[in-house]
């Protein structure tokens, strides 16, 4: 199979989605094996595509395949696929994580209602996500973008009997939708300027300077708005923690590894355009930095395992945007991939914990679980190290690269800020791990009933654990070469005019990175090791206000709620009132009533008395005659 047929990667899960959603219910075990088969096929096909891609003459040249979709006059719309290293990377990430999550879910979701439906939507998601990353035009990107959003909506709201799940799903969809307004505007603005939706043509046009600076900036920022929404960047970050209401495998797949990185992907894809627009990259950097910092703070005070991970995800996405802001898509994609593996691992690990403890995800009730769940504990430990950025785990390499790129692009101040975020990452990761797996159990009852999960769940954990440990090494030229790439990741993914760039270890930055990780880990260990209640509440005691603010996540939710209630809904009430009472009752019914009223008044002219009638005749004649004499006389 050639890479031109890569659309099969998306088509196969889509087909299985139809199969499962129509016929899944009566199938034995809800057809969960079809889920694995479906994604498994895509996973296998991915290697064919990869092989073919690497085999193509001229090596990393993009592969294009498109067909005409519709014609309106001279507006020709073509839909197709565009395969380049970024796409390949995303293929790898998506198919791998999706496969793991599918397998994991067989164990995790066992016995849930609507079991088949869960797998059906997973297939739908995989199909849309794969389509998103291979689309050659922004329209198809937008289509897939919305479809993954809907899958996310459906899966967050999977436990729809719970109000909170429903509300979270709604919030996720609407929040991203607000960003999508920008995305669609941006896409159409670019179309207006270039007359095409094709990404490559747009990039060429932008680089050729065919689009005015201000116009381009607005268009790019509009698109970036969509990316921010999808990737939960401040101030759109509020939906992602709430999205943890969904089943944990979903959090792993959609809200950590794949869908939320769509924003990063799209920005990376359009980075040449961003680069042309003055100031766009600075905005990207600032948004990324702000997000990384703020969510770092927010994660500090969370007690829900998944919420901590959610904030961490947002923060890591911020890291990726910082990388993009530095004009370096290869690093961003690198971090995207490593993050996908270790964060999926962490989520699945936490899923394993939650499953084992019968849906308990409060750190305050857990603790000491390593003994009970050795595999989960170990893999979680690996994942935590990767997230904290401990050498030589995957997260270290990618994060280190970001610092290097950032320094090159914007200088020291940015590095310092991001460093602070990195410290906090290490801190809350350690805190999470210690409070969940170490120390003494805080709730004996929960502890008693805990047991290690079956292989169907631990297997994916182990696989991802390995990836989390080693996937960082692809940064090295030799490693990349060994598995068939032209070289390390930065030699594989690059912007055309930047050219490939061979990785060199920068020991200064590496030392800094190690230091930051150490500081964070040490601080957390100091506070939480050994159930020391005195130390763990040190912040709360020192400044209750600050602690409260952290716990309330800087009041973003409250602010938004107020804005929606007072602003949008208030406006809606005003409009509805206006429509009822002004337009309808006064305007429409009013004119009807006025007509009726006129009739009611006029009818009293009809007094029933002959002299009055005669008077009317006489006056009529007189009036006509006088008017006639005046007009004509």
């Amino acid at each position, binding site marked *: 199979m050639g890479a031109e047929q890569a659309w099969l990667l998306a088509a196969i899960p889509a087909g299985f989605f139809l199969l499962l959603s129509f016929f899944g219910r009566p199938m034995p075990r809800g057809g969960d094996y079809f889920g694995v088969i479906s994604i498994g096929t895509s996973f296998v096909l991915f290697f064919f595509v990869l092989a073919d891609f690497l085999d193509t003459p001229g090596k990393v040249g993009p592969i294009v395949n498109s067909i005409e979709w519709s014609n309106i006059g001279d507006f020709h719309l073509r839909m197709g696929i565009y395969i380049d290293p970024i796409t390949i990377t995303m293929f790898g990430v998506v198919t791998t994580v999706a496969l793991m999550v599918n397998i994991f879910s067989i164990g995790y979701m066992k016995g849930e209602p609507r079991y088949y439906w869960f797998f059906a939507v997973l297939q739908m998601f995989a199909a849309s996500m794969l389509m998103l990353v291979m689309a050659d035009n922004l329209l198809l990107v937008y289509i897939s973008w919305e479809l993954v959003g809907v899958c996310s909506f459906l899966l967050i709201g999977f436990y729809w009997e719970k109000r909170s799940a429903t509300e979270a799903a709604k919030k996720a969809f609407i929040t991203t939708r607000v960003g999508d307004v920008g995305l669609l505007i941006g896409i159409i603005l670019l179309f207006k300027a270039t007359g095409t939706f094709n990404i490559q043509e747009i990039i060429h046009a932008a680089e050729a300077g065919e689009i005015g600076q201000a116009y381009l900036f607005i268009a790019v920022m509009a698109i970036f708005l969509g990316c921010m929404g999808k990737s939960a960047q401040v101030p759109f970050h509020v939906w992602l923690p709430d999205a943890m209401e969904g089943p944990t495998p979903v959090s792993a797949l959609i809200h950590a590894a794949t869908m939320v990185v769509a924003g990063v992907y799209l920005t990376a894809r359009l980075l040449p355009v961003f680069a042309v627009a003055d100031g766009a990259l600075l905005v990207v950097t600032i948004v990324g930095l702000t997000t990384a910092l703020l969510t770092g703070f927010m994660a500090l005070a969370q007690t829900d395992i998944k919420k901590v991970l959610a904030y961490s995800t947002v923060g890591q996405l911020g890291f990726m945007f910082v990388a993009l802001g530095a004009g370096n898509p290869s690093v961003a994609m690198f971090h995207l991939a490593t993050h996908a593996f270790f964060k999926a691992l962490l989520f699945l690990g936490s899923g394993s914990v939650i499953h084992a403890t019968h849906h308990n995800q409060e750190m305050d009730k857990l603790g000491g679980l390593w003994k009970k769940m050795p595999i989960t504990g170990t893999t979680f430990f690996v994942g935590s190290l990767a997230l904290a950025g401990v050498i030589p785990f995957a997260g270290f390499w990618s994060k280190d690269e970001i610092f290097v790129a950032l320094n090159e692009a914007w200088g020291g101040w940015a590095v310092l800020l991001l460093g602070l975020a990195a410290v906090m990452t290490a801190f809350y990761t350690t805190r999470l791990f210690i409070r969940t797996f170490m120390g003494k159990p805080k709730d004996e009852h929960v502890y008693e009933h805990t047991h290690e999960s079956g292989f169907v769940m631990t297997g994916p954990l182990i696989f991802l654990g390995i990836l989390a440990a080693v996937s960082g090494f692809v940064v090295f030229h030799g490693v990349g070469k060994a598995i068939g790439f032209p070289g390390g990741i930065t030699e594989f993914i690059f912007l055309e005019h930047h050219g490939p760039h061979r990785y060199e270890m920068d020991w200064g930055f590496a030392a800094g990175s190690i230091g930051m990780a150490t500081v964070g880990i040490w601080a957390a260990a100091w506070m939480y090791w050994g159930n020391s209640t005195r130390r763990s509440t040190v912040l709360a005691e020192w400044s209750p206000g600050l602690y409260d603010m952290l716990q309330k996540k800087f009041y973003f939710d409250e602010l938004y709620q107020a804005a929606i209630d007072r602003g949008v809904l208030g406006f809606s009430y005003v409009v509805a009132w206006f429509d009822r009472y002004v337009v309808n009752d006064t305007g429409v019914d009013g004119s009807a009533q006025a*007509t009726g009223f006129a009739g009611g008044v006029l009818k009293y002219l009809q007094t029933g008395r002959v002299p009055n009638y005669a008077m009317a005749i006489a006056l009529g004649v007189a009036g006509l005659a006088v008017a006639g004499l005046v007009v004509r006389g």
Partner: protein
Amino acid sequence: MRDYTIFIPEYIAAGSAVAIIGLELFMPKFRKDGLAYLTALAAVAWFVAGLFFIGKDPKSFQGLIASDDFTTYFRLLAAGIVFVVALMSAHYMRDRTKTASEYYGLMLVGGCGMVYMAAATELITAYISLELLSFTLYILVGYLKRDNLSSEASLKYILLGAFSSAMFLYGMSLIYGVTGSTTYAGIAEALSGRESGTDPAVIVGFMLILAGVGFKVSAAPFHMWAPDAYEGAPMPVTAFLSTLSKAAGFALILRLFSAAIVVDAAEWRWAVMVLAALTMTMGNLIAIQQKNLKRLIAYSSIGQVGYMLITIAAIGYGDPQGGINATSGLLIHIIGYVASTLLFFTALTAAYNKTGRDDIDGLKGLAETQPFLALVITCSLFSFAGLPFFAGFATKLFMFQGATTSETMWVVGLAVLNSFISLYYYLMIIRQMYLYEPVGETARWKVNPVLGGLAVALVLAVLFIGMYPGPAFTVSEEAAKPLFEPGVATGMARVP
């Protein structure tokens, strides 16, 4: 030349009238509904006789009365109306009066009056035929002697009728004074021969004439007798009033205005337009507030008169071709309007014979107890409102189109707006029939077969005209043409 043959159809009608009155005189026990059927038979004979005059060369009787397609049109119309109203009256009158022969006889005579109003080409003849029709109507309206409302209606009608015919006469006298002639041809010749400049006597004369004919067709502000007379009159007479009397009024107006005074159209066309606007607005606005069906239809028909008057104004504004356009529009609408009105009253009479109520609430739940009548009434109301499938749509559209000139455009717009207002009160009636449960007896009842058959025939007619207006329109055009061609109708070469 005195060609008495041109009156043969009217001989039949009038002769039948005498015969019917005589029949009851000599056979007082004769079935009262039988009289109605005899009248209908006479009307058929009248109609058939009239058919022979279609397309014949126009003839004139001493320059007083013209027999041409225009006359024939109204001849057939009169026969048709008398036929339907006579059948409609059969049970109604049988149940309410001891003697009915005068009723039917007068109806035939009134029909003759209408024919002569259409045929008259001279003022005295026009006046006499107008009074011939009016007198029969005065009596018919008050025919239910012991009925308070009937006699009150009759009194009002005759007092105001006499008053307005005095106005009419005064106007005629002024025109006679200016032109020295009472024939339409003479008037037209004299008016066109005048030196330039406007004669106040002409203006005042025109306005008085307008008041006279306006009264006849119940144009505002000369309309006030109509609602009272309609409400007080026996139900079939209301039908007679709203169809035959209106059509007759327009017949007179058309011939008089297009043949005699069109040459001075600038003096009266604006006034007709104003009257049209006033009439339709008054009629429709007040109709909204009515509770009694007959009264409501009175106002509704006043509204219709408003629409029709626009065509008269359009004749004043147009060239001969424009006149033909407007007149054929008016004539086809008269067909549609007459058919719909007769349909409505046929159904209403049937309902009234059963329920004895003529207010809107009396129709409550009719769709349950008598779905056929409800359907028929709905058809007729939709036709009034000008909704498609029914005669009203096509005829009103053609009429307005014919009446559209640059000057009358605004009244046409107002008319369309008014016909929209009218839909509201038609819906009020439909609402009573379909949306509410019947009060009291809910069992289904049967419609008298004569009325039922009549209703079916009229529905078919209304549908036919509505869906395929071609034939009716051709007839109307043929009837309109004589008015605008030099010849008998005008008695002279047309003055540009």
